[in-house]
C-alpha cells in the first residue's frame, strides 16, 4: 500500500534538504519533494515538521545468534535496531559457530527474514574460526550474502595473513574491516592505560595497541589496494593517521562509536562494568580528536558496536566482566548531541548515520533517491526523553547511559515500505 509522508523536514544528505513530502510505493521511494499528492488508496502520515530521514545504517552490531541467544537474538536485535531508527545493520561474525561459512551466513539471513524488521547484512570472518591462520571461504561468504569481512574482536595479528586477506578480497570487491588492537600490547588490559588505571590498579590497554595496528593496516591497504574500513577508532593517533592516509589517497574509511565521542575513562571509577568496552573509553584529548575527525570528514561513519551482555555477566567484578555495551537505542540521540555542540551540522550528522556508512561497504542503502528501498525514519528532533534500559527492545541492558536525559526521539521506522516501529502511545 502506498504511503505518503506529508509535511516533514526531509534530509537526504547530498540530495535534498528542505520541507517536503516522501511518497513510497511498492516498497520503494517513488518521489521526494514539496506538495506531493497521494496515490489512490495510499495512507497519509502527517509529520508536522518532524525530520524525515533515510533509515540509519549501522556497520557494527553483535546480534549473538547463533550461540549466545541469552544475550541477544536476531529478532531482539532487529527490534532494538528499528526502535533506534536503524533500518540496516551489519552483524559481526563472532558468534558460535563463527560466521566463517555459507551455512552460518544463510542461517543469519533466514533468521533476519523471519524477524521481518531491519535489513540484517552479515559480515563474514576473514579467517577460519577467526583464528587468524587460514583464510575463510571468502568467495562463498560473498556469494551467500556477506557484505564485508572482519575478524572483529579477534584481530588478525599475523600481518601476512592480513595482507593475503586484503588481496583476496579485491576479487570480490569486499571491504576488509579490522578491529585494530595489538593483542600483545593489550595483553590482559581491561581499560585505557593512564592515570585512572594506575589509581585503580587495573591492567591498562595503551592507545598504542590501537595505533600500531591502524598504522599496519593502512600500509597493507596501500600495498594491496584493498578497501579498508577501520572499526570503532578511539584514539587521537588513529584519527591523525587516517587523516593523513586519506590525504595520500589510501582507500580507507573509519567509524566512531557514540560512547567514544561522549565518555572518558573517568567513568570507570567505582569499577563500573558499564564503562568497560573494547576499545576502552579514553581521555578527553581522544574524545576531542574523534569529534574533530567527525567534523573534518576523517571519520566517515557513526556505528554503535552494539554489544549486548547479560546482567549477570556485567555483575561480575570489573576484570572478569565482558567488554561491550548496547548502543542501538541511544545512538541517534547521542549523535544529535554533536549537532547541539556545533560539531556537526544536522545534515552531516544524518550523513554519518546513513549514506556514508552505506558507501563504506558499498550498500545500496541510506538514501531517499527515487527507486531506492523505502527505508525511512521519522524523528522528533526536539523531544526530550530519559534513557530507561528496562524499556529497551534489546534483550540486554548493559548501557552506561541509563538515566541520561537526551533529545531526539525516533517516532516511526519504515523498512521496505512497511512500518516496523512506532512509538507506543504510552511513550508519546
Amino acid at each position, binding site marked *: 500500500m502506498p504511503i505518503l509522508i506529508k509535511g516533514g523536514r526531509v534530509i537526504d544528505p547530498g540530495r535534498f534538504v528542505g520541507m517536503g513530502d516522501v511518497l513510497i510505493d511498492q516498497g520503494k521511494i517513488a518521489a521526494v519533494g514539496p506538495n506531493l499528492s497521494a496515490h489512490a488508496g495510499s495512507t497519509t502520515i502527517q509529520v508536522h515538521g518532524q525530520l524525515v530521514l533515510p533509515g540509519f545504517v549501522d556497520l557494527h552490531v553483535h546480534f549473538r545468534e547463533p550461540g549466545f541467544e541469552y544475550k541477544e537474538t536476531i529478532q531482539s536485535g532487529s527490534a532494538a535496531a528499528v526502535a533506534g531508527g536503524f533500518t540496516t545493520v551489519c552483524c559481526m561474525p563472532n558468534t558460535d559457530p563463527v560466521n566463517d561459512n555459507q551455512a552460518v551466513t544463510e542461517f543469519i539471513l533466514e533468521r533476519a527474514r523471519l524477524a521481518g524488521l531491519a535489513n540484517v547484512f552479515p559480515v563474514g570472518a576473514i579467517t577460519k574460526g577467526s583464528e587468524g591462520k587460514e583464510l575463510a571461504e571468502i568467495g562463498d561468504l560473498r556469494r551467500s550474502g556477506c557484505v564485508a569481512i572482519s575478524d572483529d574482536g579477534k584481530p588478525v595479528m599475523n600481518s601476512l595473513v592480513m595482507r593475503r586477506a586484503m588481496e583476496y578480497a579485491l576479487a570480490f570487491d569486499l571491504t576488509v574491516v579490522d578491529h585494530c588492537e595489538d593483542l600483545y600490547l593489550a595483553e590482559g588490559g581491561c581499560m585505557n*592505560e*593512564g*592515570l585512572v*588505571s*594506575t*589509581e*585503580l*590498579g*587495573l*591492567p*591498562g590497554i*595503551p592507545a598504542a595497541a590501537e595505533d600500531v595496528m591502524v598504522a599496519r593496516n593502512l600500509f597493507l591497504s596501500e600495498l594491496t589496494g584493498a578497501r579498508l574500513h577501520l572499526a570503532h577508532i578511539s584514539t587521537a593517533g588513529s584519527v591523525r593517521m587516517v587523516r593523513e592516509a586519506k590525504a595520500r589517497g589510501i582507500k580507507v574509511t573509519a567509524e566512531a562509536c557514540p560512547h567514544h565521542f561522549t565518555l572518558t575513562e573517568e567513568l570507570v571509577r*567505582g*569499577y563500573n562494568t558499564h564503562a568497560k568496552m573494547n576499545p576502552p573509553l579514553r581521555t578527553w584529548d581522544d574524545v576531542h580528536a574523534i569529534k574533530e575527525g567527525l567534523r573534518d570528514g576523517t571519520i566517515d561513519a557513526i556505528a554503535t558496536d552494539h554489544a549486548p551482555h547479560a546482567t*549477570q555477566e556485567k*555483575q*561480575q*567484578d*570489573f*576484570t*572478569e566482566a565482558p567488554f561491550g555495551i548496547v548502543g542501538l537505542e541511544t545512538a541517534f540521540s547521542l549523535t544529535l548531541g554533536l549537532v547541539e555542540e556545533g560539531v556537526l551540522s544536522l545534515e552531516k550528522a544524518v550523513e554519518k548515520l546513513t549514506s556514508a556508512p552505506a558507501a563504506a561497504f558499498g550498500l545500496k542503502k541510506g538514501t531517499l533517491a527515487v527507486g531506492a528501498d523505502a527505508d525511512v525514519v521519522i524523528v522528533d528532533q526536539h523531544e526530550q526523553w530519559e534513557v530507561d534500559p528496562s524499556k529497551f527492545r534489546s534483550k540486554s541492558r548493559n548501557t552506561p547511559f541509563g538515566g541520561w536525559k537526551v533529545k531526539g526521539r525516533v517516532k516511526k521506522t519504515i523498512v521496505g515500505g512497511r512500518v516496523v516501529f512506532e512509538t507506543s502511545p504510552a511513550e508519546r
Partner: protein
Amino acid sequence: MSLKRKDLLSLAPLSVDEITLILETADSFKEVTGREIKKVPALRGKTVVNLFFEPSTRTRTSFELAAKRLSADVINFSPSASSVVKGETLLDTARNIEAMQADIIVLRHSSAGAAETLAHGVKSSVINAGDGWHEHPTQALLDLYTIRQRGMGFEGLRVAIVGDVSHSRVARSNIYALTKLGADVRLVGPPTMMPWGVEKLGPKVYYNMDEGLRGVNVIMMLRLQLERQGRALFPTIREYARLYGLTAERVRLADPGAIVMHPGPINRGVEIAPDVADSLSSVILDQVANGVAVRMGILYLMSGAG
C-alpha cells in the same frame, strides 16, 4: 571518635584523622597482645568471615588471630572449598555468607575493585585484604604503625618504596597514605615496573637505586613476583637483584637510623640480602607482630563497637 564508614576498601579516600584514629586504636590493642591472656571481649557475638579467593597465609592468619583475640567467631572461607568453582559469582557467594549473619567480611581477591563491588552488594562491613594490584589498606596501616612505633613522624619523612610498583597493591596503599601524611615518597625500580603517570600521585620516581636510597629514613622493599620473569619486565633475576636488590652496602646510603621494611614473604638474595633481612635495621618481624594489633583496631572500629 569513631570511623564513620561501613567498609575499609582503600586508603585513598581516608582523612589524616581517620588514619590517626586507626593507629591510636591499634595502640590500645597492642597492649593486649603483650598480655599473658591475649583476649578481650570487644567483639563477642560478632562474626567475622575471612573470604580469601587468593592463597595467603600471613594476612589470613593475622586477621584470624586479630578477630579471635577480640572474641569474635571466625569463619575461613577459601575458593577451593567453596562454590566458586561451581560458577557462583562473587556477589552471590558473599550474599550467602551475609545470610548467615556475618558482621564483617574480610576479602582477598585477585581482581582490582572486587572489594568495592562486594561492598555495594552486601550490608556487612567489608575489609579489603588485598584486591589485585589496587590496594592492601591494612598492610599499609601496619606499615605506618611500625614506622610510628620507631618514633618517626610522617611529615617530611623520606620513604623509598623499591621494586615492582606496577603490580603492587601494597605500594599503592602506602603511596596514598604516606603522601597524605606529608611524607616525601620515592619510588625505585625499573621503568617497566612503574605504572603510567604514577608521579602525578605525588611520589618521585628513581630508576637508579643508589640515588633513590640516598638519605631516606625508611626503605620499603616490595616482593618480586618471580613468575613475572619471561614477561619482558626484567631480563633475569640475577640482573634484577644486582640493580634493585637491597644489600648492606646500599643500606649505608640511607639515613644512619633508617629502617628496612618488607611486606613478606621475602625472597632472600633477590630483593633483599639475607644479612639485611636479619639486621638490626630490619623491622620485618615487627610488621608481622603489629599486623595483629592494627587489624584488631580495624575490626573493632568497623564492628561499630567504637
